[in-house]
């Protein structure tokens, strides 16, 4: 019997995958999945441009500079002292300022901006009347800081892109068939309704995992693209980069499982997808405010606990944003995985009860 069910599930998956991947009403899901990739590509292009500029300035400099040379410059040094250490600046801007010092008198100040580079970082010096008054060192691309940015994007990728992607795919598994008036095709076959539901769920899961894991991997590639091979190797093999990427893939799959099960049952219970989507979004949003027991009936609660990079909440971070990204009450990874699976199984159980009750009555739709 189990063999027959598995054969039937495979038949459902074959039918559903074709429909899910090529459905016109699902095209926006590809856009949602592609947006963070495009964001990282745009970021990588901008960073590459900056790196190219930095390298060019370093080449055009009179001396080959090291980071120690850049930090050797102190406020109050004269231009001659600066050029003695760093050489003639490759880029220099200057202008005059007339600054009032009394009712009828002004003083003229001669400003110069000097730009040096060691090939990776930039040094911006502001001089007034030949003396250093401001120093700014831009340390160039920093994988540590960028990884935090990557984590933030990943978090909102989980929270919004996968959420809405699963909504679009799983809500339509049954609801879409009802709207197309073609659900009877499945209901007239000698297949248990819960086996049909399992097949549709797995098809939805395969589709969402393919779309969002691909997006996830492309994001990682785009994120690492502009770094030097040495920096990439260091990040991937010595700073847990590869491990983090694998964990994010796992978290993405678990997010698809959790949200998928939620929206599968919602698609059977509700005619209008906006109502359950809004309800689940609010429920997931207010998760930090919920009592400990209720928190456990949420997908994001477990996903937050599984994310490998802690997103630092700096004092200047807006309150709501800080609340969304912080995880005050995390659970251990095994418990988080178990939690998501239990939540998903509960939703699938409700779906299996609901699918057995479903009737074909298109005229009321």
């Amino acid at each position, binding site marked *: 019997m189990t063999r027959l069910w598995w054969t039937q599930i495979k038949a*459902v998956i074959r*039918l559903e995958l074709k429909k899910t991947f090529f459905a016109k009403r699902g095209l926006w899901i590809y856009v949602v999945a592609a947006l963070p990739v495009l964001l990282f590509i745009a970021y990588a292009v901008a960073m590459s441009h900056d790196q190219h500029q930095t390298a060019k300035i370093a080449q055009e400099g009179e001396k080959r500079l090291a980071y120690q040379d850049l930090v050797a410059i102190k406020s109050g040094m004269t231009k001659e002292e600066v050029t003695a250490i760093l050489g003639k600046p490759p880029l220099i801007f200057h202008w005059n300022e007339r600054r009032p010092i009394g009712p009828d008198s002004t003083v003229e100040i001669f400003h110069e901006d000097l730009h040096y580079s060691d090939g990776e970082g930039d040094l911006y010096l502001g001089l007034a009347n030949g003396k250093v008054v401001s120093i700014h060192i831009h340390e160039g691309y920093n994988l540590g800081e960028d990884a935090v940015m990557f984590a933030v994007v990943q978090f909102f990728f989980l929270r919004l892109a996968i959420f809405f992607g699963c909504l679009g795919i799983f809500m339509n598994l049954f609801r879409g068939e009802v709207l197309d008036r073609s659900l009877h095709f499945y209901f*007239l076959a*000698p297949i248990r*309704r819960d086996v049909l539901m399992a097949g549709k769920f797995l098809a939805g899961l395969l589709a969402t995992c393919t779309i969002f894991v691909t997006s996830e991997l492309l994001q990682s590639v785009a994120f690492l693209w502009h770094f030097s091979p040495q920096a990439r190797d260091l990040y991937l093999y010595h700073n847990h980069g590869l491990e983090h990427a694998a964990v994010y893939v796992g978290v993405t799959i678990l997010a698809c499982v959790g949200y998928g099960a939620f929206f599968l049952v919602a698609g059977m219970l509700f005619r209008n997808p906006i109502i359950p989507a809004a309800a689940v979004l609010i429920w997931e949003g207010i998760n930090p405010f919920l009592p400990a027991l209720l928190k456990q009936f949420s997908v994001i609660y477990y996903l937050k606990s599984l994310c490998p990079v802690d997103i630092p909440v700096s004092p200047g971070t807006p309150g709501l944003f800080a609340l969304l990204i912080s995880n005050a009450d995390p659970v251990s990874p095994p418990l988080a995985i178990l939690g998501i699976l239990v939540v998903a199984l509960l939703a699938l159980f409700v779906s299996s009860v609901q699918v*057995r009750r479903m009737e074909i*009555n298109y005229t009321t739709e």
Partner: protein
Amino acid sequence: MSDRIIFEDVSKFYGEILGVNRVNLCIPPGITSLVGPNGSGKTTLMNLMTGLVQPSRGHIEVLGYPTDDPENLFKFVGYSTQFDAFPKGLTGFQFIYSYLCLSGMPLQDAERTAWQAIERVNMVDAASRKVAAYSKGMRQRIRLAQALAHNPKVLVLDEPLNGLDPLARSEMIALFRASATEGSYVIISSHILHEVDVISDQVILLSNGYVVAEGQIQSVRNEIQEHPTQILIRCDRPRELAAKLFESEYTIEASIHNDGRGLLLKTRDADRFYLAMNQLALNGLQIESIAPADDDVLSVYEYLIGNEEVVR
């Protein structure tokens, strides 16, 4: 295991709207036609029979199986619905093949069986085209192929002749008749009463969600007491025959046929009338034929339901 399709006090309500009410049926093998005007409950009865909707009250069994067990039910039930929608992007062949794969059939068997079903409805040439590009008649035929594909014992067909040309109609009717002869249960709903009349072994007349009559057409007709039986007699001296027949109290009305060689007569007691006719024939009156004129579905339908929406 029962060998009948049984409805026991079945009612179905869609909210406050009545689908069917207090239906009791016991359908034997052969061709059974569901007849009734739009909204009378024909499709609801078929959907109940196949588990697409569940009864609000009562119990249904198809050859001993409950209708909420699709895994077993559809092993021997095929249903050609009126729903004119198909899974998107499928060709005619893929439509049948996918259906057979869903039932768990091995892929090679499914392919062979799908082609056999397609051949039975003469759709081989169009099988590789998308169903979306089919004409109404082709869609009807491919739905029939789906219902027939797994050689079901029970074939439920909702308006199966809609959209078919005359040749295809006669082919399909022959197909249904062959299935019934092999002992299958063929349940057909149709508006086209003369076709129902030709193919049905028994009829179920529905009106406003109620079964108003069921059984073989002749026995249903015999039970309609308020309408006298009409009999057409072909003979050489119809006036003389009419005069003799009016001598008996069971002849109500007689009219001479337009060609002057026949008599249409109404009687309250057909059995006694036929006895009298035997006597008259023995007395030398030459009678070519005697045939009942209103024991067909059309007449029964008109007497019980009225003549609205009847397609003759």
